[in-house]
């Protein structure tokens, strides 16, 4: 069975100040219908750019290599009506900043019915009834009143629910959710996530869920991909991500995050700072910050290794380190920490 979304060898370069800068390197991913795939990474990892590429929202002058196939069709070959149907019907986006993606002088009702009236050629009355139904579906009380309100009259969580309602209105098969809850409070995040999950189950949509929050991805996604410097460094079942990470970077992220139920004497921080694909050194991009790095890691860019049935990793030491990444923390190992920090600085210079 072929996946709904299939990304293969995707490399993207963007024009910045007159030169092409690499933002994604050889990204592979597949997402089956009805499933949720997490895309986790820090700033510069390329997670948002992956989504923009899939949605064909790249700026002019971008240099794209590789394939993005949706339901077997090459997305970059879509033109005219097919492209319009892809963007307006098959795939739908939910953004981090809902407020920036709504027109402040238009009522929520106009916002919701616009797509229905223009795309589905629904009469206005019917579209309005549908909009009310949609708002009720995402748990918004008194939907008739909400339709007459402007974006500034709604709280962030409520607005994000309206955005979700709007994106599911066209019954897409894939939702691209770009940090949809990052700007929200934790309790609101829980509400929005539960609605997204229910909508997904009801309509059988696939969700590509972008987040910087490894814990959130672990809790809501079937599979998770970890990105670093524009590359996929790990892919596996989300539930295993925290217990048995397959890449030193994922393990380091898990350990660096403080725990709610426990105060660490010292957090095992990752030295240096996240790099972009453009700045990344030769060899393994994470090597300068990695406490397991050896000379061999710096020599060549590692390829993606399959680790049994569990998943894949872009770490050449994995067969050797598997299962031991979380065993030692490296905290207290100050000297090597500082050396690594220097090396990491050096590499990004």
């Amino acid at each position, binding site marked *: 069975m072929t996946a709904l979304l299939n990304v293969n060898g995707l490399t993207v370069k963007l024009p910045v100040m007159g030169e092409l800068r690499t933002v994604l390197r050889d990204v592979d991913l597949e997402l089956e219908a009805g499933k949720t795939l997490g895309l986790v990474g820090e700033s510069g990892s390329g997670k948002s750019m992956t989504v923009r590429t899939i949605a064909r929202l790249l700026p002019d002058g971008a240099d794209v290599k590789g394939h993005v196939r949706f339901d077997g069709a090459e997305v970059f070959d879509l033109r005219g009506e097919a492209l319009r149907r892809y963007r307006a019907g098959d795939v739908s986006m939910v953004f981090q900043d809902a407020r920036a993606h709504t027109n402040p002088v238009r009522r929520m009702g106009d916002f919701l019915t616009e797509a229905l009236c223009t795309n589905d050629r629904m009469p206005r009355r019917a579209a309005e009834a549908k909009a009310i139904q949609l708002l009720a579906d995402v748990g918004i009380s008194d939907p008739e009143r909400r339709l007459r309100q402007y974006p500034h009259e709604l709280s962030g969580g409520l607005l994000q629910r309206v955005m979700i309602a709007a994106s599911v209105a066209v019954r897409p098969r894939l939702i691209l959710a770009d940090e949809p809850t990052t700007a929200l409070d934790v309790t609101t995040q*829980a509400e929005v996530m539960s609605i997204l999950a229910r909508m997904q189950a009801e309509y059988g949509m696939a969700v590509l869920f972008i987040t910087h929050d490894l814990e959130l991805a672990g809790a809501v996604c079937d599979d998770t991909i970890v990105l670093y410097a524009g590359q996929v460094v790990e892919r596996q079942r989300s539930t295993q991500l925290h217990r048995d990470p397959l890449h030193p970077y994922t393990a380091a992220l898990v350990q660096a995050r403080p725990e709610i139920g426990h105060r660490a004497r010292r957090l095992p921080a990752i030295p240096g700072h996240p790099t972009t694909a453009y700045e990344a050194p030769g060899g393994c991009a994470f090597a300068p910050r990695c406490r397991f790095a050896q000379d061999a890691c710096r020599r060549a860019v590692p390829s993606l290794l399959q680790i049994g049935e569990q998943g894949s990793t872009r770490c050449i030491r994995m067969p050797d380190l598997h299962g031991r990444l979380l065993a030692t923390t490296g905290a207290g190992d100050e000297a090597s920490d500082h050396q690594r920090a220097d090396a990491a600085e050096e590499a990004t210079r």
Partner: protein
Amino acid sequence: MSAPLLAVENLTKRFGSGRTETTAVADVSFELASGGSLGIVGESGSGKTTTARMIIGLEKPSGGRILFRGEDRTQPARTAKALRERGRNVQIVFQDPYTSLDRRQRIGDCLAEVLGVHFKLSRDETKRRVRGLGELVGLDERQLNSLPKALSGGQRQRVAIARALAAEPEILILDEAVSALDVSIQAQILNLLSDIRDERGVSYLFISHDLAVIRQVCDDTIVMRHGAVVEQGATAAVLDDPHHAYTRLLRDSVPRDGWDPASLARS
């Protein structure tokens, strides 16, 4: 018995008047002991930032009292001299590392400027102190000579911490100071804060929405909601065994293995 370092009594802040009046902070009281670390946790609109802004003197309380070592600090300072004196007691680090630095000022000059406000120093002494502050927060000579745009978010936040510490304050307010940072950088800054506390004995008033970060940094914690304190106590007790339903909801809303947002939303 000596007065606590900072005592806040029945602090209240109302914005607007008449029909548009809203209470941002309602009757909040707490104490911060010398060398202590107090967390204020809450969601947006809980009044935690307004509380911090009143303590630092950027906002005028509508009621209640703020006492520093028993001395009344409720009214914001009016003169630059009074501001300077208070600035040597309490300092603040803001959330956004991008807008909390003057984009046209080199990092070293930024630190030297603040040192010059508080101390009469020779050029050489200023340079030495700037380098010392840089060392304290992990910034090298090259970074001290650069403009903010050459630094990453984490490095900028180090600058903001160094600038606040230049005045050698007894209390450092950290208003969501690590919230905008990547996880890997966040851990570095949290470790740095713990080192600074050990080294300098400065007390923290740590404002955050992130319970795990609060757990890592704070001895005691206050939970705020809609401007009021709903629970307060030792951090471990508040987070491990919350008594208030809202604290429980906050804790359970944090995503983790086996997390079920639907059951939370129903509750």
